């Protein structure tokens, strides 16, 4: 266990926190700005919920799945440049520990992003002077559900990022699969099964007036997707020959 914490702390020190900070805040900030410009259409929802639905749509539909991939590529970048994998894995460390530590870092970065969204959104709502109580329960549930729903994607992107040395290739794969979620959300039967469309479905408030969300299917698919991608990536990482 002690060895594991040491790897984690090494990962922590390697990270360029200013960069992670900028990446984790830029998206939520712009998402909240864009969600703000939309005029509220009083469709039976209170102002907080309807503005939140707008913001989540701007932020979660395309940007969030892609930033998950950026974080996954970023935690692997330190090893990919200058042949760090060989050095790291030549040390008496367990590969499982390395994999877990990388995964935890990605999960932590995504959590920062979600936290930034929540804070910016509530601040913007206060500045705008929205009526009514802040529905903290719904907000917390939404951002944490979005975090959980992004984990299968994070595991998958981590896997892809291990395999390709280039920063652009894992991102290209991610973008190619993210774009169809523009259409996927139109289909009620197909949407829960599409990993790149899951975060936005998990985040958007249940009565959003736009999409029907099937919670049970979604939960089941997210859990099994995560297991598949995490176990696959972990096993491949254990067995993979490291040449650079």
């Amino acid at each position, binding site marked *: 266990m002690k060895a594991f914490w040491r790897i984690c702390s090494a990962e922590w020190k390697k990270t*360029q926190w200013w960069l992670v900070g900028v990446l984790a805040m830029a998206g939520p900030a712009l998402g909240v700005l864009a969600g703000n410009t939309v005029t509220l259409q009083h469709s039976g929802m209170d102002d907080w919920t309807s503005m939140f639905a707008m913001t989540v749509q*701007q932020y979660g539909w395309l940007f969030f799945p892609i930033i998950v991939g950026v974080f996954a590529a970023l935690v692997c*970048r330190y090893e990919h440049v200058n042949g760090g994998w060989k050095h790291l894995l030549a040390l008496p460390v367990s590969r499982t520990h390395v994999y877990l530590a990388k995964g935890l870092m990605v999960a932590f970065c995504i959590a920062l992003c979600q936290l930034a969204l929540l804070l910016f959104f509530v601040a913007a709502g206060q500045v705008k002077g929205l009526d009514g109580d802040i529905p903290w329960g719904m907000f917390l549930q939404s951002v944490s559900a979005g975090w959980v729903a992004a984990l299968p994607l994070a595991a998958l992107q981590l896997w892809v990022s291990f395999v390709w040395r280039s920063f652009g*290739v894992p991102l290209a794969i991610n973008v190619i699969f993210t774009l169809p979620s523009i*259409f996927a959300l139109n289909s009620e039967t197909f949407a829960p099964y599409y990993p790149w469309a899951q975060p936005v479905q998990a985040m958007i408030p249940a009565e959003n007036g736009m999409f029907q969300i099937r919670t049970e299917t979604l939960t089941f698919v997210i859990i099994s997707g995560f297991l598949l991608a995490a176990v696959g990536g972990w096993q491949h990482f254990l067995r993979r020959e490291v040449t650079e």
Partner: protein
Amino acid sequence: MIRRIWSAEWLKVKRTWIAALTLLGPAGIIACLMVDYAIRSDYILKIYPDEWTGLILEASMILPTAIMMGVTLFASLLAGLEHQTNAWKYSLALPLSRFQLYLGKGLQLVFLLFLCSVLTSLGFAFLWVWNGFEADIPWLELFQGTLYPLLAALPVIMIQLWLSVTLRNQALPITVGVLGATIGAALAEWLPWAYPTNALPVDTENLGRTAQEPEKWVPVGIVLGILLLILGGWNFTRREVK
């Protein structure tokens, strides 16, 4: 000289992901539209006045975003060829003008995207026949439909080129590009990231959508794009390269 830089650049992209992406991008867009039409073609034919308007407006859900994402990825991958092998040092040690090297990358980036555009237009024509539309294929509009947004995206292309070439770590350029592509258009219409969204050659007057003004945004895009290319190249010539 620029001709030799140009052919050297093409040698570098042979058998890389860049070549694959040129085919995958347009194929992906057309596949999405095929699924879209397969699922709800009755609805699409009902809400738009004619087949061309329906096709381009359904495509407009994905096309501008896809163009700007493609720009981001191509720029990053092209610059990555140099960054990953620490090749800037060597290219710049050659007796070549730095501005021309930068221009070479820029031209290649625009040309790759132009190829994607043409392929997407051909894909539209395929979709037209596949869906069994009765009118003749409107070739001119099909090509305008992908080229106008691309020309309007020139400023974005040049911003991404400059970011990807000057920064080693591609996390920041990619995030800027993705943010611009996904959220940029919703912020303000004068932002470069909104031009491709508003430059489709279609009349949207009675459809309750934002007006498409290619006659305004295409020239703006071209002029601003050239300006940003020169500025980026000028900055590139006076940077220190490690």
